[in-house]
């Protein structure tokens, strides 16, 4: 299993406003890395740096062993796909067109998507079980469906790694579960996924690896069961929690209210 994405002593942020430093992470093929941490801890900045949307302030990012800083934009997009939070679009593109935009990195500068690209987009929709939405307007489907469509776009991009910025935020309970199930299924099919979340349960549910990012530094890093502990959660979030293993084998985390 090769390392698909790696950060070495990475410093993130802006020249006059550093956000974090000394970040060492790596993700291997088929792994799910879940990033936990309080708001303002630097998760989004780290993602943007891993995608080459912000330049590294120090250290480096490697994609499939190649230095990200040396890669042209479309080569980055062929290696790592960005799945933003479900957003409201400004224009009512049909879902299939939205997903087809994932094919852009594979198209010539002046080209339109062809039959092969359409087939690939349709396949991505099928995989996420939203084929019937292909001709709906993106602005008229639910938040959960938008998130699935954006994941489909990431799949159509044919990149080894998907970077998802809080894919479960702003989704209702059912859609959260749906998205997490897809994350698990995709990693089983060999894709690598980096995602951030606010809910430790989500890390238990789908991640092989957890990294806790607080104040711009990696506070802990490792398998979920060893990394997410009562003491750590108390340290980062300032609340007391209980972590329990359910009879089914799943681990959950519950705040200890009023105690």
């Amino acid at each position, binding site marked *: 299993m090769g390392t698909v994405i790696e950060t070495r002593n990475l410093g993130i942020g802006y020249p006059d406003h550093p956000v974090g430093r000394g970040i060492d992470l790596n993700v291997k093929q088929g792994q799910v890395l879940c990033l936990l941490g309080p708001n303002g801890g630097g998760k989004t900045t780290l993602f943007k740096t891993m995608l080459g949307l912000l330049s590294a302030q120090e250290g480096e990012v490697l994609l499939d062993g190649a230095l990200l800083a040396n890669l042209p934009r479309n080569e*980055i997009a062929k290696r790592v796909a960005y799945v933003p939070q479900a957003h409201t679009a400004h224009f009512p593109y049909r879902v*299939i067109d939205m997903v087809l*935009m994932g094919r852009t990195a594979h198209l010539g500068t002046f080209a*339109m998507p062809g039959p092969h690209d359409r087939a690939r987009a349709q396949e991505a929709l099928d995989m996420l079980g939203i*084929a019937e939405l292909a001709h709906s307007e993106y602005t008229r489907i639910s938040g959960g469906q938008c998130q699935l469509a954006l994941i489909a776009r990431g799949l159509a*991009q044919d990149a080894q790694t998907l970077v998802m910025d809080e894919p479960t935020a702003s989704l209702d309970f059912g859609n959260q579960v749906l998205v997490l199930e897809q994350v698990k299924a995709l990693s089983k099919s060999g894709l690598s996924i980096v995602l951030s979340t606010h809910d430790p349960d989500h890390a238990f549910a789908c991640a092989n690896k957890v990294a806790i990012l607080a104040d711009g530094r990696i506070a802990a890093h490792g398998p979920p069961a060893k990394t997410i502990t009562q003491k750590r959660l108390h340290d980062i979030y300032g609340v007391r929690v209980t972590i329990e293993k359910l009879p089914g084998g799943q681990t959950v985390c519950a705040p200890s209210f009023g105690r």
Partner: protein
Amino acid sequence: MSNTQENDHRVDAQNKAMSTVRFSNATFTIGLAALVAALALGASMIGAYPVSLSELLGVLTGTAKEAGSTAETVLLQVRLPRITAALVVGAALAGAGAVYQGIFRNPLVSPDILGVSTGAGLGAVLGIFLSLPLIIIQGFAFIGGLTTVGLVYLIASRVHGREPVLVLVLAGVVVGSLAGAMISLMKVLADPYDQLPAITFWLLGSLASTRPEDVLGVIPAVIVGLVPLVLLRWRINVLSLGDEEARALGVEAGRVRLIVVAAATLMTASVVAISGVIGWVGLVIPHIARMIVGPNFDRLLPVAMLLGAGYLLLVDTLARTMAQVETPLGILTAILGAPFFLWLLARGRQGWS
């Protein structure tokens, strides 16, 4: 498995649906083109000197009975150039509007937003103020439009750390209002009997004095602007998702936007140079086009340009026939455009898209 079979059926049905949609799109575009052509023929027959259909066809096919007839002179020297100008100006303004709205992700944006129209206006007013010949006035308008957008871009590129599109639009507003102030200054200083009416008429837009050579001069410039827009039509879709997403999808957002803005500005500035400032077309027409064919730029651009062409032809025909005196185009487009825009507003959010 019945489930898979069901899926296959569904996909089949969808593929069928998709091909019918595409077919009807092509048919729609061709039908629209035919309609605009028919309007153009109709418009060439009416006016202060009515021309019959047989006379019109005679002149168009070069088989007129008598060469140098009044009908021929009216058509070739006055009416056809003016009709062609209306079609080209309308198409260019609506096409540029569709581009600006897409890449600035704002349905309220129009070709005026980066100061193109005001800049071109300033150039032309300066030309009129200095009593220069018409061709130089047009040249000034063109240079004024391009310079303003260049200046706006330069200012925006010097401001870092903020949303680039917002900075660009704000810089456009600021530079545009500065140019507006200069125009007002020249209006105050201008000769009230000779120059001021010319300035006012130009700022309200008119095709009344279009000569054949104006039209021939502007068409190549519009084509030069149009070519990159057609070639980059898929990337313009991607840009409409915003800089960050476009870059994550593999598009050099800054560079592509620069090319696209330059192309749309060239189209706008070159037509404004012959028509004067005509508002609302670039704002309202792309909306209507998007309501009909959706936001995909591949389909949106041709439909917006055809609608723009047909619309400005209708308005210009009204302007030259409805009264003894020529009505400035900018007034008519505003009278028609403003209520429509209010209707969009009242229709609620979905109207924006």
